[in-house]
Protein backbone atom coordinates (compact mmCIF):
# COMPACT_ATOMS: atom_id res chain seq x y z
CA UNK A 1 0.00 0.00 0.00
CA UNK A 2 1.43 3.42 -0.94
CA UNK A 3 2.13 6.03 1.72
CA UNK A 4 -0.83 8.06 0.38
CA UNK A 5 -3.19 5.10 0.62
CA UNK A 6 -1.92 4.36 4.14
CA UNK A 7 -2.47 8.01 5.14
CA UNK A 8 -5.99 7.95 3.70
CA UNK A 9 -6.83 4.76 5.58
CA UNK A 10 -5.61 6.41 8.79
CA UNK A 11 -7.64 9.57 8.10
CA UNK A 12 -10.87 7.74 7.33
CA UNK A 13 -10.39 5.42 10.32
CA UNK A 14 -9.97 8.42 12.63
CA UNK A 15 -13.08 10.00 11.11
CA UNK A 16 -15.14 6.88 11.73
CA UNK A 17 -13.79 6.41 15.27
CA UNK A 18 -14.77 9.95 16.32
CA UNK A 19 -17.51 9.92 19.01
CA UNK A 20 -19.36 13.26 18.95
CA UNK A 21 -21.55 13.84 21.98
CA UNK A 22 -23.74 16.90 22.58
CA UNK A 23 -22.61 17.93 26.06
CA UNK A 24 -23.67 21.55 26.58
CA UNK A 25 -24.93 24.84 25.16
CA UNK A 26 -23.29 28.21 25.69
CA UNK A 27 -23.05 31.77 24.39
CA UNK A 28 -20.72 31.89 21.37
CA UNK A 29 -18.44 34.59 22.81
CA UNK A 30 -18.12 32.66 26.07
CA UNK A 31 -17.50 29.18 24.73
CA UNK A 32 -15.92 29.37 21.24
CA UNK A 33 -12.18 29.97 21.70
CA UNK A 34 -11.19 33.21 19.94
CA UNK A 35 -14.79 34.48 19.55
CA UNK A 36 -15.12 38.18 20.38
CA UNK A 37 -17.62 41.06 20.28
CA UNK A 38 -16.66 42.34 16.83
CA UNK A 39 -16.33 38.95 15.15
CA UNK A 40 -19.12 37.46 13.01
CA UNK A 41 -18.70 33.92 11.69
CA UNK A 42 -20.15 32.86 8.34
CA UNK A 43 -20.46 29.74 6.23
CA UNK A 44 -17.97 28.71 3.58
CA UNK A 45 -14.46 29.86 2.75
CA UNK A 46 -13.22 33.39 3.65
CA UNK A 47 -14.96 36.29 1.90
CA UNK A 48 -15.03 40.07 2.11
CA UNK A 49 -18.24 42.12 2.47
CA UNK A 50 -18.08 43.46 -1.10
CA UNK A 51 -18.11 39.91 -2.57
CA UNK A 52 -20.83 38.50 -0.31
CA UNK A 53 -24.06 37.27 -1.88
CA UNK A 54 -27.51 38.66 -1.02
CA UNK A 55 -28.46 36.02 1.59
CA UNK A 56 -25.10 36.28 3.39
CA UNK A 57 -25.30 40.08 3.41
CA UNK A 58 -28.87 39.83 4.69
CA UNK A 59 -27.82 37.54 7.53
CA UNK A 60 -24.94 39.87 8.47
CA UNK A 61 -27.35 42.83 8.46
CA UNK A 62 -29.78 40.88 10.65
CA UNK A 63 -26.96 39.82 12.95
CA UNK A 64 -25.83 43.44 13.42
CA UNK A 65 -29.39 44.52 14.30
CA UNK A 66 -29.80 41.48 16.58
CA UNK A 67 -26.56 42.32 18.40
CA UNK A 68 -27.74 45.91 18.92
CA UNK A 69 -24.89 47.28 16.81
CA UNK A 70 -27.26 48.77 14.20
CA UNK A 71 -30.82 50.14 14.35
CA UNK A 72 -31.74 49.30 10.78
CA UNK A 73 -30.44 47.75 7.55
CA UNK A 74 -28.92 50.99 6.26
CA UNK A 75 -26.90 51.48 9.42
CA UNK A 76 -25.90 47.81 9.44
CA UNK A 77 -24.59 48.01 5.86
CA UNK A 78 -22.44 51.01 6.77
CA UNK A 79 -20.95 49.14 9.74
CA UNK A 80 -20.33 46.05 7.61
CA UNK A 81 -18.56 48.17 4.95
CA UNK A 82 -16.48 50.06 7.50
CA UNK A 83 -14.32 47.11 8.54
CA UNK A 84 -15.42 47.53 12.16
CA UNK A 85 -16.63 43.92 12.19
CA UNK A 86 -14.30 41.02 11.38
CA UNK A 87 -15.78 38.30 9.18
CA UNK A 88 -14.37 34.80 9.37
CA UNK A 89 -15.43 31.30 8.31
CA UNK A 90 -17.17 29.23 11.01
CA UNK A 91 -14.71 26.47 10.10
CA UNK A 92 -11.77 28.56 11.38
CA UNK A 93 -13.34 28.26 14.83
CA UNK A 94 -14.38 24.58 14.62
CA UNK A 95 -17.95 25.76 14.11
CA UNK A 96 -20.43 25.14 11.30
CA UNK A 97 -23.60 26.95 10.29
CA UNK A 98 -26.29 25.99 7.77
CA UNK A 99 -26.88 28.31 4.77
CA UNK A 100 -25.42 31.80 5.54
CA UNK A 101 -24.10 30.28 8.76
CA UNK A 102 -23.90 33.68 10.42
CA UNK A 103 -23.00 33.15 14.06
CA UNK A 104 -22.82 36.29 16.17
CA UNK A 105 -21.13 36.71 19.58
CA UNK A 106 -24.37 36.63 21.61
CA UNK A 107 -25.94 33.63 19.91
CA UNK A 108 -26.21 30.38 21.84
CA UNK A 109 -24.42 27.39 20.32
CA UNK A 110 -24.51 23.63 20.72
CA UNK A 111 -21.24 22.29 22.16
CA UNK A 112 -20.29 18.88 20.78
CA UNK A 113 -17.39 17.06 22.38
CA UNK A 114 -15.43 14.32 20.63
CA UNK A 115 -15.21 11.69 23.34
CA UNK A 116 -12.69 9.67 21.32
CA UNK A 117 -10.18 12.31 20.23
CA UNK A 118 -11.08 15.29 22.43
CA UNK A 119 -11.94 18.84 21.36
CA UNK A 120 -15.21 20.68 20.83
CA UNK A 121 -17.22 21.77 17.80
CA UNK A 122 -20.11 24.26 17.66
CA UNK A 123 -23.26 25.29 15.83
CA UNK A 124 -26.08 27.72 16.61
CA UNK A 125 -29.80 26.96 17.05
CA UNK A 126 -31.95 26.06 14.04
CA UNK A 127 -34.71 28.58 13.33
CA UNK A 128 -37.00 26.46 11.14
CA UNK A 129 -38.01 26.79 7.49
CA UNK A 130 -38.83 29.78 5.31
CA UNK A 131 -38.10 33.34 6.37
CA UNK A 132 -35.10 32.96 8.72
CA UNK A 133 -31.74 34.65 9.33
CA UNK A 134 -29.69 31.85 7.85
CA UNK A 135 -31.40 32.48 4.48
CA UNK A 136 -30.77 36.21 4.76
CA UNK A 137 -34.10 37.39 6.21
CA UNK A 138 -34.02 39.89 9.07
CA UNK A 139 -37.46 41.38 9.79
CA UNK A 140 -38.98 41.59 13.29
CA UNK A 141 -40.45 38.10 13.09
CA UNK A 142 -36.98 36.69 12.36
CA UNK A 143 -35.25 38.71 15.10
CA UNK A 144 -37.94 37.92 17.70
CA UNK A 145 -37.59 34.22 16.97
CA UNK A 146 -33.81 34.50 17.41
CA UNK A 147 -34.33 36.17 20.78
CA UNK A 148 -36.68 33.40 21.86
CA UNK A 149 -34.21 30.76 20.69
CA UNK A 150 -31.28 32.31 22.56
CA UNK A 151 -33.11 33.48 25.69
CA UNK A 152 -35.71 30.75 26.24
CA UNK A 153 -35.13 27.69 24.05
CA UNK A 154 -31.35 27.34 24.38
CA UNK A 155 -31.22 27.83 28.19
CA UNK A 156 -33.90 25.15 28.56
CA UNK A 157 -31.99 22.71 26.32
CA UNK A 158 -28.79 23.55 28.20
CA UNK A 159 -30.31 22.44 31.49
CA UNK A 160 -31.85 19.37 29.86
CA UNK A 161 -28.62 18.13 28.30
CA UNK A 162 -26.87 18.50 31.65
CA UNK A 163 -29.51 16.25 33.24
CA UNK A 164 -29.17 13.81 30.34
CA UNK A 165 -25.38 13.78 30.84
CA UNK A 166 -24.87 14.19 27.12
CA UNK A 167 -26.54 12.95 23.93
CA UNK A 168 -24.73 10.56 21.55
CA UNK A 169 -25.11 12.23 18.15
CA UNK A 170 -23.48 9.47 16.14
CA UNK A 171 -26.04 6.96 17.37
CA UNK A 172 -28.86 9.33 16.33
CA UNK A 173 -27.43 9.66 12.79
CA UNK A 174 -26.93 5.89 12.44
CA UNK A 175 -30.50 5.14 13.58
CA UNK A 176 -31.98 7.91 11.42
CA UNK A 177 -30.44 6.40 8.26
CA UNK A 178 -32.50 3.29 9.08
CA UNK A 179 -35.61 5.46 9.33
CA UNK A 180 -35.46 7.20 5.97
CA UNK A 181 -33.26 10.24 6.63
CA UNK A 182 -30.07 11.35 4.87
CA UNK A 183 -29.17 13.53 7.90
CA UNK A 184 -28.87 16.64 5.75
CA UNK A 185 -32.01 17.63 3.89
CA UNK A 186 -34.35 15.06 5.42
CA UNK A 187 -34.23 15.29 9.19
CA UNK A 188 -37.63 14.00 10.26
CA UNK A 189 -36.09 10.90 11.88
CA UNK A 190 -32.99 12.61 13.33
CA UNK A 191 -35.21 15.26 14.87
CA UNK A 192 -37.70 12.69 16.20
CA UNK A 193 -34.88 10.74 17.82
CA UNK A 194 -33.33 13.95 19.13
CA UNK A 195 -36.64 14.97 20.74
CA UNK A 196 -37.28 11.46 22.10
CA UNK A 197 -33.84 11.45 23.75
CA UNK A 198 -33.99 14.88 25.34
CA UNK A 199 -37.73 15.30 26.06
CA UNK A 200 -37.84 13.66 29.52
CA UNK A 201 -35.03 15.92 30.69
CA UNK A 202 -36.65 19.07 29.25
CA UNK A 203 -39.71 18.29 31.33
CA UNK A 204 -37.55 17.66 34.38
CA UNK A 205 -35.85 21.10 34.27
CA UNK A 206 -37.23 24.10 36.15
CA UNK A 207 -38.57 25.20 32.76
CA UNK A 208 -41.17 22.44 33.15
CA UNK A 209 -43.09 24.74 35.48
CA UNK A 210 -42.03 28.20 34.31
CA UNK A 211 -44.58 30.08 32.22
CA UNK A 212 -43.40 33.71 32.42
CA UNK A 213 -40.40 35.20 30.68
CA UNK A 214 -39.31 38.50 29.15
CA UNK A 215 -38.45 37.39 25.61
CA UNK A 216 -41.06 37.69 22.81
CA UNK A 217 -43.38 34.65 22.80
CA UNK A 218 -43.59 32.47 19.70
CA UNK A 219 -46.81 31.83 17.83
CA UNK A 220 -47.13 28.05 18.16
CA UNK A 221 -50.75 27.84 17.02
CA UNK A 222 -49.52 26.00 13.91
CA UNK A 223 -48.60 23.12 16.25
CA UNK A 224 -51.85 23.16 18.22
CA UNK A 225 -54.73 25.53 18.95
CA UNK A 226 -53.90 24.88 22.61
CA UNK A 227 -51.02 27.34 22.43
CA UNK A 228 -53.35 30.14 21.28
CA UNK A 229 -55.39 30.35 24.44
CA UNK A 230 -53.03 29.03 27.08
CA UNK A 231 -49.80 30.34 28.52
CA UNK A 232 -47.88 27.09 28.31
CA UNK A 233 -44.79 26.12 30.28
CA UNK A 234 -41.43 26.85 28.67
CA UNK A 235 -40.82 23.11 28.42
CA UNK A 236 -44.06 22.63 26.47
CA UNK A 237 -43.23 25.51 24.14
CA UNK A 238 -39.71 24.20 23.57
CA UNK A 239 -41.01 20.72 22.74
CA UNK A 240 -43.74 22.15 20.50
CA UNK A 241 -41.19 24.22 18.59
CA UNK A 242 -38.86 21.22 18.22
CA UNK A 243 -41.78 19.19 16.89
CA UNK A 244 -42.79 21.95 14.45
CA UNK A 245 -39.33 22.06 12.87
CA UNK A 246 -37.91 18.95 11.19
CA UNK A 247 -34.56 20.75 11.09
CA UNK A 248 -34.36 21.06 14.89
CA UNK A 249 -31.52 18.54 15.04
CA UNK A 250 -29.67 19.69 11.90
CA UNK A 251 -27.25 22.15 13.51
CA UNK A 252 -26.23 19.69 16.23
CA UNK A 253 -25.89 16.96 13.59
CA UNK A 254 -23.66 19.28 11.55
CA UNK A 255 -21.46 20.05 14.55
CA UNK A 256 -21.20 16.29 15.17
CA UNK A 257 -20.14 15.82 11.53
CA UNK A 258 -17.60 18.63 11.96
CA UNK A 259 -16.23 16.70 14.91
CA UNK A 260 -15.74 13.62 12.70
CA UNK A 261 -14.13 15.66 9.91
CA UNK A 262 -11.80 17.35 12.37
CA UNK A 263 -10.61 13.95 13.62
CA UNK A 264 -9.39 13.18 10.08
CA UNK A 265 -7.65 16.53 9.57
CA UNK A 266 -3.85 16.89 9.69
CA UNK A 267 -2.73 13.47 8.43
CA UNK A 268 0.47 13.87 6.42
CA UNK A 269 0.26 12.64 2.79
CA UNK A 270 -3.53 12.18 2.93
CA UNK A 271 -5.47 13.23 -0.16
CA UNK A 272 -8.78 13.14 1.71
CA UNK A 273 -11.19 16.09 1.84
CA UNK A 274 -11.88 17.24 5.42
CA UNK A 275 -13.84 20.42 4.69
CA UNK A 276 -16.39 21.34 2.03
CA UNK A 277 -18.27 24.63 2.49
CA UNK A 278 -19.92 27.42 0.49
CA UNK A 279 -20.46 31.09 1.25
CA UNK A 280 -22.99 31.84 -1.50
CA UNK A 281 -20.26 33.16 -3.81
CA UNK A 282 -17.46 30.57 -3.63
CA UNK A 283 -17.27 26.88 -2.88
CA UNK A 284 -14.21 25.88 -0.86
CA UNK A 285 -12.53 22.65 0.20
CA UNK A 286 -9.66 21.82 2.54
CA UNK A 287 -7.66 18.60 2.66
CA UNK A 288 -6.35 16.56 5.56
CA UNK A 289 -2.69 17.10 4.61
CA UNK A 290 -2.72 20.71 3.41
CA UNK A 291 -3.49 22.47 6.70
CA UNK A 292 -5.72 25.54 6.64
CA UNK A 293 -5.32 26.23 2.91
CA UNK A 294 -8.62 26.64 1.05
CA UNK A 295 -9.08 25.66 -2.58
CA UNK A 296 -11.97 27.65 -3.99
CA UNK A 297 -13.99 28.21 -7.17
CA UNK A 298 -17.25 29.99 -7.99
CA UNK A 299 -20.18 28.09 -6.43
CA UNK A 300 -22.87 26.74 -8.77
CA UNK A 301 -26.60 27.51 -8.58
CA UNK A 302 -28.64 24.57 -7.16
CA UNK A 303 -31.37 22.95 -9.21
CA UNK A 304 -34.47 21.47 -7.57
CA UNK A 305 -38.03 22.10 -6.48
CA UNK A 306 -39.17 25.62 -5.67
CA UNK A 307 -41.75 26.80 -3.17
CA UNK A 308 -44.96 28.26 -4.60
CA UNK A 309 -44.34 31.67 -6.13
CA UNK A 310 -40.58 31.18 -6.68
CA UNK A 311 -38.58 30.03 -9.71
CA UNK A 312 -35.06 28.94 -10.60
CA UNK A 313 -33.98 32.47 -11.54
CA UNK A 314 -34.62 33.51 -7.90
CA UNK A 315 -31.98 31.07 -6.60
CA UNK A 316 -28.71 32.20 -5.10
CA UNK A 317 -25.48 30.32 -5.67
CA UNK A 318 -24.85 27.37 -3.38
CA UNK A 319 -24.44 28.40 0.26
CA UNK A 320 -23.81 26.84 3.67
CA UNK A 321 -21.61 24.61 5.82
CA UNK A 322 -24.20 21.81 5.85
CA UNK A 323 -22.16 19.98 3.23
CA UNK A 324 -20.08 18.85 6.22
CA UNK A 325 -22.60 15.97 6.27
CA UNK A 326 -21.51 14.76 2.81
CA UNK A 327 -17.87 15.24 3.86
CA UNK A 328 -18.30 12.47 6.45
CA UNK A 329 -20.42 10.08 4.37
CA UNK A 330 -24.04 11.05 4.99
CA UNK A 331 -26.34 13.63 3.29
CA UNK A 332 -26.27 13.16 -0.49
CA UNK A 333 -23.86 10.24 -0.04
CA UNK A 334 -26.54 8.37 1.95
CA UNK A 335 -29.44 9.25 -0.33
CA UNK A 336 -30.26 5.58 -0.90
CA UNK A 337 -31.29 5.50 2.76
CA UNK A 338 -33.72 8.34 2.17
CA UNK A 339 -35.73 7.72 -1.02
CA UNK A 340 -38.60 9.89 0.26
CA UNK A 341 -36.26 12.88 -0.01
CA UNK A 342 -37.08 13.13 -3.69
CA UNK A 343 -40.41 14.71 -2.69
CA UNK A 344 -38.37 17.61 -1.37
CA UNK A 345 -35.47 17.94 -3.81
CA UNK A 346 -36.82 16.37 -7.00
CA UNK A 347 -35.92 13.21 -8.97
CA UNK A 348 -36.99 9.61 -8.38
CA UNK A 349 -36.13 7.00 -5.71
CA UNK A 350 -33.93 5.27 -8.33
CA UNK A 351 -31.93 8.51 -8.59
CA UNK A 352 -31.31 8.34 -4.84
CA UNK A 353 -29.74 4.88 -5.22
CA UNK A 354 -27.71 6.04 -8.24
CA UNK A 355 -26.37 8.97 -6.23
CA UNK A 356 -25.13 6.79 -3.38
CA UNK A 357 -23.69 4.17 -5.74
CA UNK A 358 -21.79 6.82 -7.67
CA UNK A 359 -20.19 8.17 -4.47
CA UNK A 360 -18.44 4.82 -3.84
CA UNK A 361 -16.37 5.71 -6.94
CA UNK A 362 -14.73 8.69 -5.22
CA UNK A 363 -14.49 7.59 -1.59
CA UNK A 364 -11.98 5.68 0.49
CA UNK A 365 -14.13 3.44 2.71
CA UNK A 366 -17.55 2.04 3.48
CA UNK A 367 -18.60 3.57 6.78
CA UNK A 368 -18.60 1.16 9.71
CA UNK A 369 -21.12 3.23 11.70
CA UNK A 370 -23.56 4.44 9.06
CA UNK A 371 -25.19 1.91 6.75
CA UNK A 372 -28.12 1.51 4.38
CA UNK A 373 -30.63 -1.30 5.03
CA UNK A 374 -31.89 -1.38 1.42
CA UNK A 375 -28.32 -1.99 0.21
CA UNK A 376 -27.81 -5.04 2.45
CA UNK A 377 -26.60 -2.73 5.23
CA UNK A 378 -23.65 -1.58 3.13
CA UNK A 379 -21.69 1.20 4.83
CA UNK A 380 -22.18 4.65 3.33
CA UNK A 381 -19.44 5.91 0.98
CA UNK A 382 -17.05 7.81 3.24
CA UNK A 383 -13.91 9.92 2.89
CA UNK A 384 -13.63 11.78 -0.42
CA UNK A 385 -10.31 11.18 -2.19
CA UNK A 386 -9.38 14.18 -4.36
CA UNK A 387 -7.44 11.87 -6.68
CA UNK A 388 -10.54 9.82 -7.42
CA UNK A 389 -12.69 12.92 -7.97
CA UNK A 390 -10.31 14.14 -10.69
CA UNK A 391 -9.56 10.73 -12.17
CA UNK A 392 -13.23 9.71 -12.47
CA UNK A 393 -14.51 13.23 -13.21
CA UNK A 394 -17.18 12.68 -10.57
CA UNK A 395 -17.86 15.46 -8.05
CA UNK A 396 -19.46 14.88 -4.62
CA UNK A 397 -23.26 14.68 -4.63
CA UNK A 398 -24.81 17.42 -2.51
CA UNK A 399 -28.40 17.92 -1.33
CA UNK A 400 -29.16 21.48 -0.32
CA UNK A 401 -31.70 24.14 0.55
CA UNK A 402 -32.00 27.01 -1.92
CA UNK A 403 -31.81 30.64 -0.76
CA UNK A 404 -33.30 33.61 -2.61
CA UNK A 405 -30.50 35.62 -4.21
CA UNK A 406 -31.70 38.85 -2.64
CA UNK A 407 -31.17 39.75 1.01
CA UNK A 408 -34.18 39.62 3.32
CA UNK A 409 -36.37 37.03 1.54
CA UNK A 410 -35.26 33.59 2.75
CA UNK A 411 -35.57 30.00 1.54
CA UNK A 412 -37.22 29.45 -1.84
CA UNK A 413 -36.71 25.72 -2.40
CA UNK A 414 -34.45 22.69 -2.09
CA UNK A 415 -32.52 20.57 -4.55
CA UNK A 416 -29.17 19.27 -5.63
CA UNK A 417 -25.98 21.04 -6.64
CA UNK A 418 -22.63 20.07 -8.09
CA UNK A 419 -19.45 21.47 -6.58
CA UNK A 420 -17.06 22.96 -9.16
CA UNK A 421 -14.36 20.55 -10.42
CA UNK A 422 -11.74 23.35 -10.63
CA UNK A 423 -11.06 23.40 -6.89
CA UNK A 424 -10.45 19.63 -6.81
CA UNK A 425 -7.96 20.06 -9.67
CA UNK A 426 -6.24 22.92 -7.82
CA UNK A 427 -6.03 20.74 -4.71
CA UNK A 428 -4.53 17.91 -6.76
CA UNK A 429 -1.91 20.27 -8.18
CA UNK A 430 -0.98 21.41 -4.67
CA UNK A 431 -0.63 17.81 -3.48
CA UNK A 432 1.64 16.95 -6.44
CA UNK A 433 4.05 19.86 -5.73
Amino acid at each position, binding site marked *: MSKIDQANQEAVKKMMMSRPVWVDIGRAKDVIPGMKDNLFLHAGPPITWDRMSGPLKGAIIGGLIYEGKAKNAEEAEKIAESGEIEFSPCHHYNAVGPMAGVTTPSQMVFIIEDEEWGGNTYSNMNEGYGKVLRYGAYDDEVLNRLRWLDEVYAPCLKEAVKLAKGVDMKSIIAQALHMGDDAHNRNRATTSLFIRTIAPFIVETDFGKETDYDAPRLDLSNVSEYFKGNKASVAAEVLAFMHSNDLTSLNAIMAACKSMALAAHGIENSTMVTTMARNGTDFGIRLSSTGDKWFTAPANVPDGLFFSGFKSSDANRDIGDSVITETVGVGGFAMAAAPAIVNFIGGSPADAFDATNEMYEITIAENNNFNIPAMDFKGTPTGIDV*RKVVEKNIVPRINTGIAHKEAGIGQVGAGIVKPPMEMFIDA*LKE*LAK
Partner: protein
Amino acid sequence: MENLFNSELKVINMGLEEFAETLKERGTQVIHVRWQPPAMGDDNLLSLLDKLK
Protein backbone atom coordinates in the same frame (compact mmCIF):
# COMPACT_ATOMS: atom_id res chain seq x y z
CA MET B 1 -20.85 -11.53 -39.67
CA GLU B 2 -24.04 -12.35 -41.57
CA ASN B 3 -25.37 -14.08 -38.43
CA LEU B 4 -24.72 -10.96 -36.40
CA PHE B 5 -26.88 -8.77 -38.62
CA ASN B 6 -29.61 -11.36 -38.90
CA SER B 7 -29.91 -11.97 -35.12
CA GLU B 8 -31.55 -9.77 -32.53
CA LEU B 9 -29.21 -6.99 -31.39
CA LYS B 10 -28.17 -6.90 -27.72
CA VAL B 11 -25.96 -3.89 -27.11
CA ILE B 12 -23.52 -2.87 -24.40
CA ASN B 13 -23.04 0.88 -24.77
CA MET B 14 -20.03 2.59 -23.18
CA GLY B 15 -19.50 6.31 -22.76
CA LEU B 16 -22.09 8.57 -24.33
CA GLU B 17 -25.49 7.70 -22.87
CA GLU B 18 -27.40 9.29 -25.76
CA PHE B 19 -26.47 6.34 -28.01
CA ALA B 20 -28.05 3.94 -25.51
CA GLU B 21 -31.17 6.10 -25.28
CA THR B 22 -31.61 6.15 -29.06
CA LEU B 23 -31.30 2.36 -29.24
CA LYS B 24 -33.76 1.95 -26.37
CA GLU B 25 -36.27 4.14 -28.19
CA ARG B 26 -36.01 1.77 -31.17
CA GLY B 27 -36.74 -1.22 -28.94
CA THR B 28 -33.20 -2.61 -28.86
CA GLN B 29 -32.01 -4.29 -25.68
CA VAL B 30 -29.18 -2.12 -24.35
CA ILE B 31 -27.13 -1.90 -21.20
CA HIS B 32 -25.35 1.38 -20.65
CA VAL B 33 -21.94 1.46 -18.96
CA ARG B 34 -20.89 4.79 -17.56
CA TRP B 35 -17.34 5.34 -18.75
CA GLN B 36 -15.21 8.32 -19.56
CA PRO B 37 -11.49 8.75 -20.16
CA PRO B 38 -9.56 9.02 -16.86
CA ALA B 39 -8.98 12.61 -15.72
CA MET B 40 -11.08 13.87 -18.63
CA GLY B 41 -8.28 12.74 -20.94
CA ASP B 42 -6.01 15.57 -19.75
CA ASP B 43 -2.35 14.47 -19.97
CA ASN B 44 -1.22 17.02 -17.42
CA LEU B 45 -3.74 15.77 -14.83
CA LEU B 46 -2.85 12.15 -15.61
CA SER B 47 0.83 12.87 -14.89
CA LEU B 48 -0.15 14.53 -11.58
CA LEU B 49 -2.22 11.47 -10.68
CA ASP B 50 0.76 9.24 -11.52
CA LYS B 51 2.86 11.22 -9.05
CA LEU B 52 0.25 10.69 -6.34
CA LYS B 53 -0.11 6.91 -6.57
